[in-house]
């Protein structure tokens, strides 16, 4: 009985392969987009974990200075003498040619076993490691990038994060130009009893407990949350297809269900059989979906990796590894999605009276009450969104706001469209036009799910492109301000830097130092820059708010400028005091915009910088010169000092590079956007195909009264276009609201900067054309079928058997 039942149920799909294809396609696409995002996030997280686990930081406690600055090596000696089992580490960023790397210096003799990343202390390895020129250990990928550069010998070591090299502390101190300095001390897990207290031996140091997540994971959280949100949106849009395909398949099999029930199959067993059938489909589509997701992910990963590097300085490999967790999660989400999409149909089946008459159009004819309920739900959601906008805070609130806004808008769509179509029907004259509008309105319930999916995709498109374009506009303007100098030069040694400075003094209008130290400000990583008192800054710096005479105060060594993200994250404002590395305090005299920078930044006068940080590396200068002479000067500089090309960069070069990073940053979201739109188009196609089979009784009388099939087909096509156009109209305000939330809430929380919103109607026009094209394609097949339908198929409508 059960077997017979199952075969009877499954035979439906053999007769309707297109329907089956739609169901599987919708489900696999939804799963694919979701899995792609998961695979990307998983890859990135794994590499953050590797970074966080380096030198056992996830297991070992450490001693650091409260301000994050480096300490003297003397501290290490003192602690060892006082009985502490500690091991010194120095860490810093440096360039080898055009490769920027994180350099980690360790002391192989005192390193705790938990921190052994690479075993250097065996046999012949130790001596070359600790004696000049030393050895650099690097991950295979990093080692390859270094082959062209002049570096100490490089050896490959698995397990190191990309973009990091490991070397002896003495060599690292030389490379980083930080003689006798260390960044932190690793603590052995077991410390001898009776050692002198920390306060006495090393005042100013604090104990940092081992942490599982590094700064990177925390910094990039919002980026990944962003991606997850998009993946989820795409998944939800895909589920609309699945929902309508399942609903149709259930409706068409009512007769079979009734027969099976009448033959004695219990309702429970029938429902279980159908669930089993759905699970088979879900697993099948899930497998295809995850595989497809990997394809999408590996296409997107290089851009994501570039984004993470550009935006957060996070190194993520550009290739994917296959993760069991992604497979499991993909299959699970496919199954859950299928069951969610089928819940309504299963529920109805459970309550199906044994002898209820088949109502083939019942599901398409949503009652007034359902529409009203949907309207109420939409109102509640939109009010919730408004409430969150008013009172909520934090990134989670931002996303909750987005979700409520989008879902509310989607639920409100059928109501809005009904209103518009009613109005349109009243405005037109002529029997065909009136029928066209009235009939379009009657089609709404059957199409509303697909149209809601389309609305979501279009609104997301409008919202994200508005955000990106606003950002681009602001960013380009900001780059022009920020990169006022014509040339930027980096010397290889301090002696060379001094020589360059002197050489430039007579040949340029101004030579402005770009010197900085790194440390922690208000508990977060930050860079402190010194600036000369020069019109370059006074005239151009992108100040958001400042006290009067701000540059005079900076020049006088009285106050500091901070970047927007530091101000927002730490809620700092004009007049507040901050503690800078080394323990001195300064008051905030201004806040400036600093897009694209993941960490905090502080600007003080150059003299103040040198006074507080005499060891600051003095290698970089900005050069002011008449733009026409810049190129010749750059060539002269390179020739005079034998500088590599990348050590002298002109303004245009940096701008091109920055914009490239910027564009790559949003290529991923753009790609997800286009894919979501494609899925929505497919949802529309599935619905239209489904409806076209049920349309004949509505179309046949009109045909009989004197319309050609071709004419009817054109009207059907126009109907699809009209609905898509109206949905696009509705999507614009929703998209603008979305952009506003992204710019004013999500970006502020995620990146720490707020951007002005600009509107780009030209983009909307292009998107509208794309939406119409998608709708046209979706409507074309059913319309074509109608135009070619044989008269006897239409006449069957009137045949007595029906």
């Amino acid at each position, binding site marked *: 009985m059960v077997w017979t039942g199952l075969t009877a149920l499954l035979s439906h799909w053999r007769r309707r392969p297109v329907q089956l294809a739609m169901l599987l396609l919708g489900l696999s696409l939804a799963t694919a987009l979701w899995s792609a995002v998961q695979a990307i996030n998983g890859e990135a997280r794994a590499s953050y974990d590797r970074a966080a686990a380096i030198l056992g930081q996830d297991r070992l406690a450490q001693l650091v200075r409260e301000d994050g600055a480096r300490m003297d090596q003397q501290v290490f000696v003192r602690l060892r003498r006082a009985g502490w089992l500690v091991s010194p580490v120095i860490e810093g960023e440096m360039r080898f040619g055009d490769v920027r790397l994180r350099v980690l210096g360790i002391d192989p003799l005192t390193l705790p076993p938990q921190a052994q990343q690479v075993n250097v202390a065996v046999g012949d390895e130790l001596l070359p490691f600790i004696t000049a020129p030393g050895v650099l250990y690097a991950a295979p990928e990093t080692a390859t990038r270094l082959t062209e550069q002049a570096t100490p010998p490089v050896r490959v070591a698995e397990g190191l994060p990309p973009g990091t090299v490991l070397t002896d502390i003495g060599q690292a101190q030389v490379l980083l130009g930080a003689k006798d300095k260390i960044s932190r001390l690793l603590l052995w897990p077991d410390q001898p009893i009776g050692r002198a207290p920390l306060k006495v031996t090393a005042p100013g140091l604090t104990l940092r407990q081992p942490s599982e997540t590094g700064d990177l994971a925390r910094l990039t959280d919002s980026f990944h949350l962003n991606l997850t949100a998009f993946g989820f949106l795409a998944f939800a849009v895909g589920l609309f297809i699945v929902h309508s395909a399942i609903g149709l398949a259930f409706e068409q099999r009512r007769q079979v269900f009734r027969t099976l029930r009448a033959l004695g199959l219990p309702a429970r067993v029938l429902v279980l059989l159908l669930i089993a059938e759905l699970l088979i489909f879900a697993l099948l589509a899930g497998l295809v979906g995850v595989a497809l997701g990997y394809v999408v992910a590996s296409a997107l990963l290089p851009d994501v990796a570039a984004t993470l590097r550009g935006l957060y300085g996070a190194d993520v490999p550009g290739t994917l590894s296959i993760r069991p967790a992604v497979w499991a999660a993909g299959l699970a989400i496919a199954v859950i999605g299928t069951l969610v999409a089928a819940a309504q149909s299963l529920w109805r089946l459970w309550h199906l009276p044994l002898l209820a008459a088949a109502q083939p159009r019942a599901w398409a004819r949503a009652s007034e009450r359902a529409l009203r309920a949907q309207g109420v739900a939409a109102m509640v959601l939109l009010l919730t969104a408004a409430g969150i906008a008013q009172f909520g805070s934090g990134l989670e609130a931002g996303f909750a706001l987005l979700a409520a806004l989008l879902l509310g808008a989607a639920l409100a769509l059928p109501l809005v469209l009904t209103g518009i179509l009613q109005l349109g029907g009243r405005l037109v004259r002529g*029997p065909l036009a009136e029928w066209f509008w009235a*009939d379009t309105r009657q089609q709404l319930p059957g199409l509303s799910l697909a149209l809601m999916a389309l609305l979501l995709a279009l609104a997301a498109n409008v919202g994200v492109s508005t955000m990106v374009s606003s950002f681009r506009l602001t960013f380009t303007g900001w780059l022009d301000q920020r990169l006022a100098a014509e040339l930027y030069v980096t010397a290889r040694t301090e002696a060379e830097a001094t020589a360059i400075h002197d050489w430039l003094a007579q040949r340029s209008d101004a030579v402005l130092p770009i010197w900085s130290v790194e440390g922690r400000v208000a508990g977060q990583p930050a860079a402190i820059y010194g600036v000369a008192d020069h019109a370059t800054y006074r005239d151009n710096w992108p100040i958001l708010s400042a006290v009067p005479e701000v540059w005079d105060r900076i020049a006088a060594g009285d106050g500091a400028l901070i970047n927007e993200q530091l101000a927002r994250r730490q809620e700092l404002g004009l007049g507040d005091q901050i503690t800078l590395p080394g323990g001195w305090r300064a008051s905030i005299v201004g806040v400036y915009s600093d897009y694209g920078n993941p960490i905090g930044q502080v600007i003080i006068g150059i003299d103040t910088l040198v006074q507080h940080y005499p060891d600051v590396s003095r290698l970089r200068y900005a050069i002011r010169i008449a733009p026409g002479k810049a190129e010749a000067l750059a060539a002269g500089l390179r020739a005079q000092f034998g500088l590599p090309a990348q050590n002298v960069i002109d303004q245009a070069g940096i701008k091109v590079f920055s914009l490239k990073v910027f564009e790559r940053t949003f290529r991923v979201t753009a790609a997800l956007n286009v894919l979501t739109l494609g899925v929505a188009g497919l949802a529309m196609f599935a619905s239209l195909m489904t409806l076209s089979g049920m349309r004949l009784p509505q179309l046949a009388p*009109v045909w*009989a*009264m*004197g319309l050609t099939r071709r004419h009817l087909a054109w009207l059907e096509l126009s109907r699809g276009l009209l609905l898509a156009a109206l949905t696009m109209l509705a999507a614009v305000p929703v998209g603008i609201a979305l952009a506003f939330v992204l710019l004013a809430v999500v970006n502020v929380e995620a990146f720490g900067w707020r951007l002005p919103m600009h509107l780009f109607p030209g983009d909307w026009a292009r998107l509208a054309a794309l939406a119409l094209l998608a709708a046209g394609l979706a409507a074309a097949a059913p319309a074509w079928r109608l135009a070619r339908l044989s*008269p*006897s198929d239409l006449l069957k409508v*009137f045949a007595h058997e029906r």
Partner: protein
Amino acid sequence: MLLRLHQIDKFYPTGEGPLHVLNGIDLSLEAGKSLALTGESGSGKSTLLHLVAGLDSPDAGEIHLGGTNIVGLNDTALAALRRATVGLVFQQFNLIPSLDVAANLAFQARLAGRPDPAWLKVLAKRLGLAQVLTRYPEQLSAGQQQRVAIGRTLAARPRLVLADEPTGNLDEATGDAVLDLMLSLVAETGAALLMVTHSNRLANRLNARVHLHAGRLV
């Protein structure tokens, strides 16, 4: 002669080879007259009616309607013919579900370019539909739906009314009442009527009757 069929043949392709539904049919109908077409179920009555209406085309023969042979006309011409000359009443699925009764009643006359509000009002009243003009087809009884279909057809004042078992879906009392209405209204407009029925009782109420059997008229 309003309608003249000459040697009409019609085949349907089936699994067991072509089915010869109509075999050399000759038939004529004068303007203003009514003719009943009877026959067993499956004898080809509906097929014949569809051919006359220009909804399908015969495999051989000629159909002269108002002086023109409509066999071989293209889709557009046939559609124009349906608008201008013919009115159809089927057993069911006559009405446009998305339009209310008033719009359904007026639809064909407006489509044909012959709107006549005064006549429409008379029709609605005579058909007992004046109270339900704002309802939608699904909110009507089967008898009411058929009356709307009849009203809609007659509102356009077609020269030929084609009806395919117009009361087949109704109980006897309702069916008789609807048929009475239809016959008297058709007579008033001066249209010719070709009505398919399998009821002898109904057939006898028309001017003449023909019987279809095994593809031939007897």
